[in-house]
């Protein structure tokens, strides 16, 4: 009985939200365009000029090649961080002595700037794809370990006792009780790590790579091709928005549909 009264309100709400978002976008572009009238193109190119540049970059294949190069590196670093961070977090969470011993390492790792990791990476790997991958890894790893570790602390002891009365093996208890309990923590950590990873990969690419969005950004800025700098910036923001709204948000809604606060 509640659905019919709720549904129109909801669509009305999302329609007005879309309207407000579009208004904001139009306003920003208008302000940008107005400002560009009073500046030379190498300081602030007009939106039209940037759009034209985006189209030529897309037509040449340059745009997607570099976007996917960067994306691939972020995913590679992220995957290694997950492969190490998930078992690491579970290990630290399940062994108190080990956890207390390694605890100070994580905040220290978090304070090291990604630029410093990039410089180390250049020393160790030179101008290679390994440099951005390494930087993504070192940024994502502490975030994932910390969250998984927290997740292990949040596992309900009553559920573990339930598993005991059902005579579950250790492996079964891990798979059926621990993993689902930790998953929300892992997911929020992974999302954070992926966002950070994307940003630091650009830093790493500007310093130590010969392809990728970060490399092309620095190249454009060196040649004072300001319209290209804008075009790459817009392209990478668009890519992040698509991944976030098209993949991660729906995935989270699906995985955690059992939660009271998530509306499907």
């Amino acid at each position, binding site marked *: 009985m509640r659905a019919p009264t709720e549904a129109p309100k909801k669509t009305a709400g999302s329609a007005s939200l879309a309207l407000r978002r579009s208004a904001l976008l139009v306003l920003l572009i208008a302000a940008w365009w107005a400002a560009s009238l009073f500046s030379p193109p190498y300081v602030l190119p007009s939106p039209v000029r940037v759009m034209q540049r985006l189209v030529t970059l897309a037509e040449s294949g340059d745009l997607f090649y570099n976007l996917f190069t960067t994306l691939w590196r972020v995913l590679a670093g992220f995957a290694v961080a997950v492969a190490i961070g998930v078992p690491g977090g579970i290990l630290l969470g399940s062994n108190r002595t080990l956890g207390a011993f390694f605890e100070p390492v994580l905040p220290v790792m978090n304070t090291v700037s990604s630029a410093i990791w990039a410089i180390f990476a250049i020393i160790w790997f030179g101008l290679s794809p390994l440099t951005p991958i390494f930087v993504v890894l070192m940024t994502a790893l502490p975030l994932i370990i910390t969250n998984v570790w927290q997740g292990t602390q949040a596992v309900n002891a*009553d559920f573990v*006792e*339930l598993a*005991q*009365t*059902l005579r579950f093996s250790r492996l079964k208890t891990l798979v059926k*009780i621990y993993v689902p309990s930790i998953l929300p923590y892992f997911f929020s950590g992974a999302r954070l790590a992926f966002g950070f990873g994307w940003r630091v990969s650009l830093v790493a690419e500007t310093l130590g790579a010969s392809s990728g969005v970060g490399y092309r950004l620095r190249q454009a800025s060196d040649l004072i091709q300001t319209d290209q700098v804008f075009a790459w910036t817009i392209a990478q923001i668009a890519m992040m928005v698509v991944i976030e709204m098209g993949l991660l948000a729906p995935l989270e809604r699906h995985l955690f549909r*059992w*939660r009271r606060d998530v509306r499907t």
Partner: protein
Amino acid sequence: MTQTAPHAPPSDPRQALAFRHVSKHFLRGDGSSLEVLRDVGFDVPAGSVVSILGPSGSGKSTLLNMAAGLLLPDDGRVLVLGHETSGTVDWSRLGYMFQDDRLLPWRTAVDNVGLALETGSMGKRERRERAQAQLAVVGLGEFGSSYPHQLSGGMRSRVALARSLVTEPDILLMDEPFSRLDAQTRTTMHTELLRIHRERGMSIVFVTHDVEEAVILADRIVMFSPRPGRVHTELSVDLAHPRLGTPEALTLVAELRAAIAGMSADWVI
């Protein structure tokens, strides 16, 4: 549907559970020892409902955990279907229902019930079918795909009951399972439990601190004294069901309450 798991015949088929001179201590944080149970002995005849009635701190839950094999006694023996819990027992013949419903929030009602079948090698489809059938037995056939947070307290309690019954246990251990429900829902659950007991004939050990609940459900009441827990009185309840509000039941409740008043000052009833 019958239990297919093979098992050795118990040495005394008339006793589902037997406690013999059971004592238990726990170590406290400061290193001192806390005596929880002292020389406890009683039987749970096969097919009967035995209520363990006692104030908090009389070791009732400890006793159930021993029956479930999660704890071993310091002294004495606990026999499940004639087998000592320190040896090999077919644990699949026991069901356990906790004080809280303990439903996994990320599983639907039917998958929560099916959890109890995931110990063995039963296929996913059969588990689902059995879980669904068991949900229907407790009156929740329509709610299999609901998540726990979508269900009321009484419904969640029914799901938990279905989970403890789905393995078709010979012994059902219940640790104050309805104590968090409102009075009306609790009465409904009592009726449901007695109906299922009539149909299945399993043995039930029902722990409670509520005198009325013990009188309504039990064929036999084992009354415990406070810490260290000892058997204070054992009595049979030979009253016809339903007992709620009948003069005989009310008299028995009053008698038991009087006995308790003489025994313990801190037993809130």
